[in-house]
């Protein structure tokens, strides 16, 4: 048996392979959990992994939520509670809310679970030492999991391979390697009616980008869309969120 075979077998049996699988087997029937990661880099990977393990499907846009206001939190929780299918719902980046909103969220979730909910709620943080994390650690309704930074990098890649996403990420080993030129060469005038280029710079306007993508009507299959992401400093997380919504959840 070769060393590569041994490593493959070890990896396939390891709990580190797939966080969603680990959570679903570790929790059993107790399915209300908070999941804390020390870094924001892998939030979407964990989110997909959890959804695939529980539901064997991609999350939809109304199952995942990035809350910013009190009304959004309440509407999300009620939508989650009264959903007839007991689907898994996820809130992420809750530690970026104000203390007041975090307290409201803790209070509402505890109140809802007192009514013996059957739905599955996951919450994902980046900061295990955040205020809301300490609040939920005292709750008997929520199972708090933390420190999963040692997990495997891409447990869900085999799933995404089957999704037939029509998205290609173009990168290069050096600057000036003609990436734009290569993309422009992919334009086939017999198939594509239009070539659309969106440069994303440090001063990019999120609302404008959303509006432009919306106007494109991307279901016709006759446009070639080229997003150029230059090195930006300020809007990593928002860009990550928009791209996740746009490419994987299929919404804006």
């Amino acid at each position, binding site marked *: 048996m070769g060393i590569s075979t041994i490593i493959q077998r070890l990896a396939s049996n390891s709990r580190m392979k797939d966080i969603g699988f680990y959570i679903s087997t570790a929790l059993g029937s107790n399915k209300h959990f908070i999941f804390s990661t020390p870094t924001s880099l892998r939030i979407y990977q964990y989110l997909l992994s959890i959804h695939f393990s529980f539901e064997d499907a991609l999350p939809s846009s109304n199952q995942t939520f990035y809350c910013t206001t009190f009304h959004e939190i309440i509407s999300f929780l009620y939508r989650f509670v009264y959903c007839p299918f007991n689907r898994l719902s996820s809130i992420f980046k809750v530690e970026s809310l104000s203390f007041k909103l975090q307290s409201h969220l803790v209070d509402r979730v505890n109140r809802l679970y007192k009514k013996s909910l059957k739905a599955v709620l996951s919450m994902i943080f980046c900061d295990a030492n955040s205020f809301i994390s300490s609040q939920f650690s005292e709750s008997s309704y929520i199972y708090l999991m933390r420190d999963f930074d040692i997990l495997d990098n891409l447990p869900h890649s085999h799933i995404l391979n089957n999704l037939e996403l029509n998205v290609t990420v173009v990168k290069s080993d050096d600057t000036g390697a003609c990436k734009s*030129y290569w993309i422009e060469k992919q334009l086939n005038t017999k198939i594509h009616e239009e070539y659309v280029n969106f440069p994303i710079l440090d001063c990019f306007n999120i609302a404008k980008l959303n509006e432009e993508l919306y106007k494109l009507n991307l279901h016709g299959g006759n446009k070639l869309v080229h997003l150029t992401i230059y090195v930006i400093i300020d809007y990593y997380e928002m860009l990550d969120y928009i791209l996740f919504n746009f*490419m994987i959840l299929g919404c804006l």
Partner: protein
Amino acid sequence: MVFKDKVANPIYIEISNTFNEYFYNEISVLPMMPKNKIIFAADSIQTIDIGTDIKDKVQVVCNYLENLDKGYLDELDIHGNN
């Protein structure tokens, strides 16, 4: 707005080159995409289509570099793109 189906149009996301692919890894959605195209600068320079027009941008740069190598820059007028 929610799409009824997944996006049908081909989308190409070009990501700027940074040291150790730092920027590519920082946007966590990008490494998740199954289709990745890595362009090697050494290969693409071999295949680049340089126009024969003397005012072509690539021609201007090549002309400049050639004359810089030969040390003729102080003696010759280089064709500019104007």
